[in-house]
């Protein structure tokens, strides 16, 4: 058993929130050009957020089964880390409570959305993804019938990107989750956005689906900023999970070109 004080979790989350918002990953940078590159440069040099939408924090915890968190409540520590990170980093607080009525801002960008996986080992990995509303709003879930197969999957993913048009700040990264249940497919579609941009799936059949989707999406013509062009998506990442004999869930989660996430291992 290895002990990790929860205050260490809070400190780490606070740092990741700030870094993710002003320091774009190298893989994303390689795929962008012109104004967007200039924007990323200014953001990094001057510690200004890349985008004014600093997102809702989605925190993925991969916790080794031999870890014991000590000194307090783990989820409270993650929440405190988000609040500290958004205050210290001069980041925009974009979270409102009671979504269907008064929508009063929580003031500290908390609470985050937290996903926890238990893995072998005695380490804890923390991944902070800051997810903007414009791209998240273009998410889609289709519960296809098994007979619709690969063709149905391609049709629903391409349609989702086409209908999103210029809204999600293209060029986008397209996360696709296929299988499981409705909720599981949505989580797959989000998590797969964390994969290194453009790295194909290990399974050749899934990789070939990714390549087909990328080609068809880039044939739509939306282009960077939606002004017309051949690059509507930088990459399509697909993840799959076994599903029920009656089901073929297909979830799409779009990520704007400011694909911001950071991770740390404690």
């Amino acid at each position: 058993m290895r002990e990790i004080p929860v205050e260490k979790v809070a400190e780490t989350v606070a740092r990741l929130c700030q870094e993710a918002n002003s320091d774009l990953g190298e893989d994303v940078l390689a795929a962008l050009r012109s104004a967007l590159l200039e924007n990323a440069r200014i953001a990094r040099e001057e510690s200004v957020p890349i985008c004014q939408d600093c997102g809702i924090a989605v925190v993925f915890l991969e916790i080794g089964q031999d870890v014991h968190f000590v000194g307090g409540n783990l989820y409270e520590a993650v929440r405190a880390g988000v609040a500290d990170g958004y205050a210290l980093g001069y980041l925009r607080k974009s979270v409102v409570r009671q979504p269907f009525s008064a929508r009063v801002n929580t003031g500290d960008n908390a609470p985050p959305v937290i996903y926890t996986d238990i893995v072998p080992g005695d380490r804890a990995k923390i991944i902070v993804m800051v997810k903007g509303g414009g791209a998240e709003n273009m998410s889609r879930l289709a519960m296809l019938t098994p007979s619709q197969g690969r063709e149905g999957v391609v049709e629903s993913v391409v349609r989702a990107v086409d209908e999103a048009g210029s809204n999600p700040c293209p060029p986008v990264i397209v996360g696709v989750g296929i299988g499981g249940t409705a909720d599981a497919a949505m989580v797959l579609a989000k998590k797969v956005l964390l994969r290194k941009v453009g790295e194909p799936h290990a399974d050749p059949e899934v990789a070939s689906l990714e390549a087909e989707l990328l080609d068809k999406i880039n044939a739509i013509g939306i282009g960077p900023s939606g002004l017309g062009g051949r690059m509507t998506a930088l990459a399509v990442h697909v993840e799959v999970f076994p599903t029920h004999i009656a089901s073929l869930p297909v979830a799409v989660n779009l990520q704007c070109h400011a694909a911001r996430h950071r991770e740390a291992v404690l």
Partner: protein
Amino acid sequence: MKETGAPIRITSPLDDRVVKSLRAGDQVRITGVLYTARDAAHKRLVDGLKKGESPPFDLTGQTIYYVGPTPARPGRVIGSAGPTTSGRMDSYTPLLLAHGVKGMIGKGQRSESVKEAIGKYKAIYFAAVGGAGALISRSIKKSEVIAYADLGAEAIHRLEVEEFPAIVINDTEGGDLYEEGKAKYRRGG
């Protein structure tokens, strides 16, 4: 879609003659005053107008920028300040145009009713580059909250801008750069 030429320099508040002369695809640099408003501020503005209250600033000829900036670090004018998705403002827009608003800056396609209102009231819709909020903030020289301070990032700010970069999406003659751009690059069925 026009090929990119030298940007057209315009001032805001907008002059009717200038608005009518702009065409989808024109690159512009805006100098003057912009007012920020996004979801919550639009709701409050329009609720007030419907009750016959006067708006917190004179809407005539003004340009509304759909943005909720990040907080300014000490010594800075503003934080990151790029456009948000305009479509969420569509249900409020025709009434604001009827009350004299002439320009809008955001990102993303507008509804048919907004496009009709743009033609009817002779207004103009610009896009700024989404996700380039750090770069755009450099053209903002002054920022002050003039209404709805309780809304935080969603409060109405009066911005003074110089050479603010934007591109015309929807013009008074029905031009639509998103449609034209997509059609030009679409391949296959």
